[in-house]
């Protein structure tokens, strides 16, 4: 077939091309259900073995917990529970609402399901293997079933953290005993809940769709029929997609702040972070086992330059694990300002030369910028860094099966919760091979962590967590970079909702503005 290009065809074609961009705008304006971006794909939907915030956020919206965080707050109200009664510091009675149905035909939620869900944290999975998030429920001794809908939570010791990071959060998700037993290993990819939403679709590395659960009986019905989550690991890319009206909500990097502020029909959300990004040093690995080498690296790396270069100066520098504002923040923690002479002197003391290490990080622009600054800094003191940038799936898989044992220096971004014990748990000896990528083993730190869990007095807890951070500092296994700052853009018609850390999104409370 031959196509003849005359003036009329040309004009018609040009007109069609001219209105093409506006079709995109029209589609965006017509959307009634939001499309949002997430920087990490679903890794494991088992609440006790979840990988990151993506699964945590999905699990909280798909599953019910005894009590649920209120919109945007760390206070909570009853969800699956009709009533929770405190009998003593270590004993709580609960009663479930009747008629709460699990999706997929797995029946009604009973106290047996609560016991089964929580026992997994106490006894491990079906093969007895400890769940990755078992420490969220560390204080829980047992769950006793006293009736179809009633039971008791028995604690080992009084715990300030159990409710905040355990029961209310994704770890507290109540699963169907029948479903878990039937699904077996598929629990990692299939989520059966009774909460406000259902996981309607998941196309790995592409998108997932959460839909409102019509059978949800609790007080927090989802506002949208569907929320589509696109997996876009790179914030710069998702920000461009947002500008093209393909998305209604996304996080973006600090260096795009001015651009974001100038976008039409857009709200910019800026939340100071409580997370922690640091360079973890594997204390078991070769020359890094020498504390002087680790101290030299700490003196050699210019964290201030990293803040300016990789984060555009839009976030402040961290000097310890717990962010300002959190219980246990060590305000007087030492600040290691770059000192090449000290670094070289320490290396000279070790007598080691020609040191070469691998720096592992995510392959996003910010992480790569951090890696390259560290690489340049260390080159000045004679240490050669090879950068190993990994996609998020491969990177976070390092948290399983001792895959982290060969890491050397690693840029690690972890999210925080509101109780310091959540942050400190990843540095325990029991986390070596899982999420303690420094492989630092301090019995004293472990003992203090336990004390922190069992102590209710705020001042005493504060002192405990400061002491723990001092031990971390002495180990020179962590170079703290930043607690982050969370920037989001969202379409003016959408009202997203998240907990005050900016990372725990509450899909069930996303609403029209």
């Amino acid at each position: 077939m031959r196509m003849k290009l005359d003036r009329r065809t040309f004009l018609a074609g040009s007109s069609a091309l001219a209105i093409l961009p506006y079709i995109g705008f029209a589609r965006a304006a017509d959307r009634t259900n939001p499309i949002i971006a997430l920087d990490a794909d679903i890794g494991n939907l088992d609440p006790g073995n979840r990988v990151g915030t993506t699964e945590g956020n999905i699990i909280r919206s798909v599953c019910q917990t005894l009590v649920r965080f209120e919109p945007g707050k760390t206070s909570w109200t009853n969800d699956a529970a009709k009533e929770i009664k405190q009998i003593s510091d270590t004993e709580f009675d609960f009663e479930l609402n009747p008629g709460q149905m699990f999706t997929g035909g797995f029946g009604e939620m009973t106290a047996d399901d609560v016991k089964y869900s929580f026992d997994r944290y106490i006894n491990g999975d079906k093969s007895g293997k400890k769940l990755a998030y078992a420490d969220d429920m560390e204080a829980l001794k047992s769950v006793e079933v006293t009736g179809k809908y009633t039971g008791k939570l028995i604690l080992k010791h009084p715990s300030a953290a159990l409710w905040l990071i355990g029961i209310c959060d994704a770890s507290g998700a109540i699963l169907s005993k029948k479903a878990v037993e039937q699904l077996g290993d598929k629990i990692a990819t299939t989520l059966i809940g009774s909460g406000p939403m259902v996981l309607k679709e998941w196309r790995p590395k592409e998108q997932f769709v959460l839909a409102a659960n019509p059978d949800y009986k609790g007080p927090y019905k989802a506002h949208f029929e569907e929320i589509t989550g696109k997996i876009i690991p790179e914030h710069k890319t998702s920000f461009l997609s947002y500008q093209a009206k393909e998305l209604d909500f996304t996080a973006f990097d600090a260096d795009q702040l001015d651009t974001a502020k100038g976008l039409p029909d857009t709200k910019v959300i800026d939340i100071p972070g409580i997370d922690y990004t640091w360079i973890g040093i594997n204390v078991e690995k070769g020359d890094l086992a020498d504390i002087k080498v680790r101290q030299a690296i700490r003196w050699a790396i210019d964290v201030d330059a990293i803040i300016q270069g990789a984060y555009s100066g839009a976030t402040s520098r961290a000097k310890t694990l717990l962010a300002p504002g959190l219980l246990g923040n060590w305000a007087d923690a030492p600040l290691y300002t770059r000192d090449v002479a000290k670094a070289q002197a320490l290396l000279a003391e070790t007598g080691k030369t020609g040191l070469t290490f691998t720096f592992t990080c995510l392959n996003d622009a910010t992480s790569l910028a951090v890696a390259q600054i560290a690489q340049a800094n260390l080159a000045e003191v004679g240490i050669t860094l090879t950068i190993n940038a990994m996609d998020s799936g491969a990177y976070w898989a390092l948290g399983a099966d001792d895959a982290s044992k060969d890491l050397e220096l690693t840029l690690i971004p972890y999210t925080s919760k509101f109780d310091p014990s959540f942050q400190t748990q990843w540095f325990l000896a029991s986390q070596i091979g899982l999420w303690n990528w420094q492989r630092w083993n301090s019995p004293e730190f472990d003992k203090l962590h336990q004390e922190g869990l069992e102590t209710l007095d705020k001042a005493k807890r504060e002192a405990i967590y400061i002491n723990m951070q001092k031990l971390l500092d002495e180990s020179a296994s962590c170079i703290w970079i930043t607690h982050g700052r969370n920037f989001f853009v969202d379409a003016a018609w959408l009202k997203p909702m998240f907990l005050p850390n900016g990372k725990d999104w509450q899909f069930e409370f996303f609403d029209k503005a």
Partner: protein
Amino acid sequence: MSGLVATLKRICSERDGRLGLAFTCLILVFALVGPLVSPDPNAIDIKARFAPPGVMHLLGTDNLGRDLMARTSVGTRYALTLAVMIVVISSVIGSLIGIVAGIAGGWVDRAVTAVFDIVNAFPPLILAFALIALYGKGSATFVLLVTVVFIPQFGRMARARAQTLRTLSFIEAERMLAVHPVTIVVRHYLPNVAGPIIVLASMNLPVVIAFEASLSFLGFGVQPPKSSLGTLIKDGFISINQSWWPTVAAALVLAIATLGATLLGEALRRVIDPKSAGVR
């Protein structure tokens, strides 16, 4: 020497040839001289990040304050070096394999052709991902990968020529006179195969340059802090809201390099192999 001058004269006698030669020379000068007159391409200067083009930094700076003139010229040098290296290695290996297959015929020919078909069956990017998964990222993997991809192209051309030559009477005569096969290959096959192989090599140069840039853009090529045109375009694209010049500078160099090599290759084909020049 006079042959080279004559070839250059014939290339310059047409417009596309002149343009291709000019672009190629420009890129060569940029790649050779650029790094000599620029600062350290990996030197970070956070205070100078995203500096616009100026006297201190002719092409501006990137997100870490590194001089883009230095990084672009080093990236160009790297791309050209790799391209030439790959094309030379794959053309030599491919020609030898192709000539052997063409002369031997029978099962040797069928086996070589089957291997070429298998290699060609994989889309280059898929093959690239597989080899990178096996051998890791880096220049050595890249050279291995692209060499493997290009060997069949050269091999097929050499094989076809060798098959034609094998039946010619002067080759038959030398064989009857018990002239050593290697001598026959060196004396007759190689000179006859060389022309089309040189043309094919010149046509493949821009393909390798673009392929290297593509892989680096996707994060599978050059690893930081080294620069390549692909990583420069990607890094620039990510920061396009802050500065447009890193992307434009790298993309322009890539465009000139590939266009120049393509035009020069086409012109070379018309000069060396006029019979195939009309075939598109």
